[in-house]
């Protein structure tokens, strides 16, 4: 029983940011159908700017969180405006958009090193105090991270399902042309969603950054898991965001459970294999989508 409690607590707290980032990526996927690999750099840059606000501007962690989220949100919107919106307007194919996002990711990941350097940077925060949850020591930041995951999930649910702008978003996601015809301005709604997605990513980056270090590949080293959560949770309907949150948290717990038994490297391999199994099992459902 201890093992499961440990896995659960560690999984939720250490990997809380995973679910947060997955929800952000899922927002973009939900709205525009794009898997944006460069979202990794939104995460990374959030971490860097948060660290910068913390160390250079002297803000405490919570203040730097706001900076991290805001800057990442802005960067996300900028990438939408400069690259993804033009791509969508030119009707660039799915595969090509993925490759574009890969290119953007590479570009940003190396470009940022000319600004921030390539060595690991660190947040300047007091040593964490640990509170015991179910016999496992967790830090306050980790608890906040999980709290944010849940809060964001709830907020998004309420926003998308229960509000007017949310209804517009749902309409846009399911049929962009029809939505436009009925007078919804896709641009404002889309910009808002990309901003929120960016904020989620930036916050995740800050939490990851403060827990270990801030490096150029902070986001990219995690983007595979993040996109697997989104692809496996699947679908572009309203319940998808719930599923993404659930799969993201479950993946975190599974990873922790595995790491408690076997070394981290092999734990990651088994986690990936688990994802591949689920991916294949769900593959059957794409039949009938066409018109032949």
């Amino acid at each position: 029983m201890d093992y499961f409690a440990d896995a659960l607590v560690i999984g939720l707290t250490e990997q809380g940011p995973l679910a947060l980032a997955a929800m952000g990526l899922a927002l973009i996927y939900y709205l525009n159908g794009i898997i944006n690999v460069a979202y990794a750099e939104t995460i990374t840059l959030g971490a860097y700017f948060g660290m910068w606000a913390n160390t250079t501007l002297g803000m405490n962690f919570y203040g730097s969180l706001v900076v991290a989220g805001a800057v990442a949100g802005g960067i996300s919107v900028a990438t939408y405006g400069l690259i993804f919106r033009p791509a969508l307007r030119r009707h660039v194919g799915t595969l090509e958009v993925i490759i574009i996002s890969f290119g953007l990711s590479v570009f940003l990941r190396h470009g940022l090193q000319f600004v921030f350097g390539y060595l690991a940077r660190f947040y300047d925060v007091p040593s964490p105090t640990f509170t015991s949850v179910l016999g496992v020591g967790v830090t306050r930041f980790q608890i906040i991270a999980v709290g944010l995951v849940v809060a964001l999930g709830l907020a998004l649910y309420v926003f998308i399902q229960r509000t007017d702008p949310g209804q517009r978003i749902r309409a846009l996601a399911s049929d962009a042309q029809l939505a436009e015809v009925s007078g919804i301005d896709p641009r404002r709604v889309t910009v808002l969603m990309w901003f929120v997605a960016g904020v989620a990513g930036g916050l995740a980056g800050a939490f990851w950054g403060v827990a270990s270090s801030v490096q150029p590949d902070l986001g990219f080293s995690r983007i595979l898991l993040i996109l697997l959560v989104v692809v496996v949770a699947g679908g572009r309907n309203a319940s998808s965001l719930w599923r993404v949150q659930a799969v993201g948290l479950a993946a975190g717990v599974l990873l922790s459970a595995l790491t408690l038994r076997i070394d981290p490297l092999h734990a990651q391999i088994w986690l990936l294999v688990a994802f591949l199994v689920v991916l294949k099992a769900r593959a059957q459902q794409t039949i009938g989508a066409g018109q032949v």
Partner: protein
Amino acid sequence: MNGLWDFLFGSPAFLTFGLYTVVMVIGLALLLHLQMGLAGIGNFGVVGFWGLGMYGFGVLVVTYEWPYLGALLAATALAGVAGVVVGWLVADLDTDGVLGATLSFATIVLLLADGERDLTGGQVGLGTIDFPFDVGARTDVAWLGVLTAIVGAILYYVRRVHRSPYGRLLIAVGDNEALATSLGKATFRSKMLLLALTSAAMGLLGALYASMSHFLFPSHVDVRLTIAVVVALVLGGSRQPLGAVVGALLTVGLFDVVIKVYVRLPPDFAEQAYPKFQQMVYGGLLIVLLLFRPLGLLGDMRRDRLSKRGRHG
């Protein structure tokens, strides 16, 4: 002829290495052209198959002391089997699924190379792997020749595919898989078989590289190689075989041969900033090309210039 001889054999070792990389990327891009340009499979795990062949070969030769040729064939077969498995996984997945699955595969190969320390030496590295023959001080040039012959054969095969029923089938699968299925074509099986063959070839290229590199590190199995191959293909043109050649010459050829060898870069710039600058250019190229000229320099297939017209035409 003398000039070429001097150029190759009188040149510094890193020129040969640069040329080797260019030819190898051409080979990998040609194989990716079959997968992506024809059959529509967005394989982002190129370095995984290449790395599996490289490390498979390395482990057999160094850890198990297998003979060279046997290890080479076994490594190629291993990559081919991986191709069958990955092919089976991705043949009925949509683009996002293929992205996730192929990236996962490449990551697993990297994690194994890093983690199976008893087999691969992990971070310490695996070596020493020599050339299978010795023709003196410039055996590396001879090895470049071997690679060029093999990549030449791959190019020949790819061109023949375009002019054969198999190529027509692959193009149909990439264009409109459901329609091909409705004509009785076994599209799943075709994609799986294609991945098996092309992955085996990618593994072979990896295994050959082991001799050139002499020492293997997990850091070799890096997404950077996949990116270089994709950029080369996209720049040259993913729909034409020669696109792989043109693209590789203009990217790897430019950055790893022409500039590195002939432009005198300040040493600390060359060490740290230049590789990052190179990556930024690659990334930027991908964005700009796919937005404004997605078919690359050579443009689309021109099958109207290719078709055999039969007796009547």
